[in-house]
């Protein structure tokens, strides 16, 4: 009998943890240890055919240029560009939305490595406006500051980052929370995240009625050349963008572009977020991503696969059941389970 943490147990536990104000601290420790073990795991794996120096979570510091244009690559029988496979962002996790490699503001846990200067870290995920900041209305900016000031000691439920309770990551956070799989079917592009599933409908049906609000919104997409264009409505606004507390509301609207490179090994995500009740103007979020294949070694964060058992010699990848497994209880919950 082996247990992996489930988000349901975590959801229950985190109510308790949240109440006694420990959740984010445990989460931080778990995250750091997870990153460390991911790295250790990498060293124990057979050498990947495309070796990368000490990948860890923060693989890269820059965003490559990928132009929108025609698609000359492989296509699926239904005509969609074939971009199926395992993907992950290259920059960082959700610790900090606008300074992705800058750590969580006010983190009481000592850093394992000194923080390099700002210009040696990856740029803000906000690519427009040029200052890299979300153009919040004053009231909303105050709420974000309040969240950051209370994050490490969350005396109220709203200061707990909801992903720590295993809520779906939402948009855009799901794209920088572990690796994920993109699968394509006639009429659909589906994202299988560790923290929820996004079904993008390509058939042009109308959005759900306005009063239905969803963690991942309601997505309608179409392909233009190398670019998947997705219109997202019906947000519930609850997911937050990271441990820095930025947010959109249930009045928000997101227009996404997934721009794939000619060899389908990379894409850039560019999304325009609009919300007249929270922002002073629309702004753009940019997130670079790369593909991971059976030629890469699994690494516990970006690429969480196992080699399947089978009689053939080729590598088949398994991805085990996606559960919220670490974020605020990777260690404590084992004890909870054992007590039973």
């Amino acid at each position, binding site marked *: 009998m082996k247990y992996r943490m489930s988000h349901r147990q975590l*959801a229950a536990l985190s109510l308790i943890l*949240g109440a006694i104000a420990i959740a984010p601290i445990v989460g931080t420790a778990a995250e750091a240890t997870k990153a460390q073990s991911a790295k250790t795991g990498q060293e124990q794996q057979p050498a990947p055919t495309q070796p990368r120096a000490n990948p860890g979570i923060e693989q890269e510091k820059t965003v490559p240029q990928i132009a929108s244009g025609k698609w000359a690559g492989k296509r699926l029988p239904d005509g969609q560009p074939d971009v199926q496979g395992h993907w992950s962002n290259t920059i960082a996790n959700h610790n900090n939305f606008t300074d992705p490699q800058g750590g969580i503001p006010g983190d009481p846990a000592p850093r394992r490595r000194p923080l390099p200067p700002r210009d040696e870290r990856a740029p803000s995920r906000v690519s427009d406006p040029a200052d890299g900041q979300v153009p919040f209305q004053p009231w909303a900016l105050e709420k974000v500051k309040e969240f950051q000031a209370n994050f490490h000691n969350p005396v109220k439920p709203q200061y707990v980052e909801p992903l720590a309770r295993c809520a779906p990551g939402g948009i855009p956070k799901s794209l920088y929370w572990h690796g994920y799989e993109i699968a394509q079917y*006639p009429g659909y592009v589906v994202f299988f995240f560790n923290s929820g599933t996004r079904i993008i409908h390509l058939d042009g049906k109308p959005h759900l009625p306005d009063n239905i609000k969803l963690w991942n919104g309601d997505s309608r997409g179409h392909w233009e050349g190398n670019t998947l264009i997705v219109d997202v409505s019906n947000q519930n606004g609850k997911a937050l963008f990271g441990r820095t507390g930025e947010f959109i509301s249930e009045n928000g609207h997101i227009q996404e572009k997934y721009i794939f490179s000619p060899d389908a090994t990379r894409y850039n995500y560019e999304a325009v977020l609009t919300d007249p009740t929270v922002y002073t103007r629309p702004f753009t979020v940019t997130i670079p991503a790369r593909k991971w294949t059976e030629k890469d070694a699994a690494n516990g964060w970006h690429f969480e696969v196992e080699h399947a058992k089978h009689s053939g010699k080729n590598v088949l990848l398994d991805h085990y059941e996606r559960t919220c497994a670490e974020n605020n209880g990777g260690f404590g919950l084992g004890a909870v389970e054992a007590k039973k």
Partner: protein
Amino acid sequence: MKHQLKKQPRFSKTGMTLLLVASVLVLPLASLNAAAAGVKFPRLSNGKPDFSGIWQTTSAADYDLEPHSNRKDTPPGPGIVEGNVIPYLPKALEQKKKNFEARETDDPRTKGWTLGVPRGIYYPEPFQIFQRANDLNIVHQFGHSVRTVYTNGSEHPEDPWDWWLGDSRGHWDGDTLIVDVRHFNDKTWFDRAGNYHSDALHVIERWKYLDPNTIEYKATIEDPNVFSRPWEVSVILNRHREKNFQLIEDYRFTLDYDDAYPPKPDKQ
């Protein structure tokens, strides 16, 4: 299997006459095996049946797998267990009775936990099958939980974790998809009546088209810690054909705390 035949046209005199004629012509076919009758249904490019679509049972199985009279919280139902009675070991039957008494609070469904296998299949919410040659991904509206059924010739992993939905490996027997599911945790129930299992649960599913909009789903359930012998359930799954029908996220385990988000302007 006459009941699968019925489409309900508006009844007019001519309509009724036509229906009667049609019944006479079509009814005998219904008793034949779908394949033998030459029934066409969707197939993948590799020739295997394509179960892609949104499915749901009209059965009330989730209330209680076994035959039961009405109760305050349950409509009556004929059950879906072959032979009517689940063959519990004596001690396990005691536990089932305890579960039944505490069903209002202890049913994992009430906490929004993943429903498990086979419960997610006959639970009264839709699920969507996304199928490729090498796998099927089953996305349940309830909890938006995802089960991957590998049909790429791979086997169960050795020394795996325990999972909510087990580890599913499928193969084809003609046009029937047979799925072997193992490595479960012991946290799910089979229904609202407290029928349960241990982490030794082993489920063998058989998925077969009866017609393009109907799947016959059967599951053999064994668990030597809980049951004296394997037993079988069977339900009919119907394709959702309503215009623009789609799954709607039902992450209900967040409902206890999601009022805290997003931040809202302070009330003046």
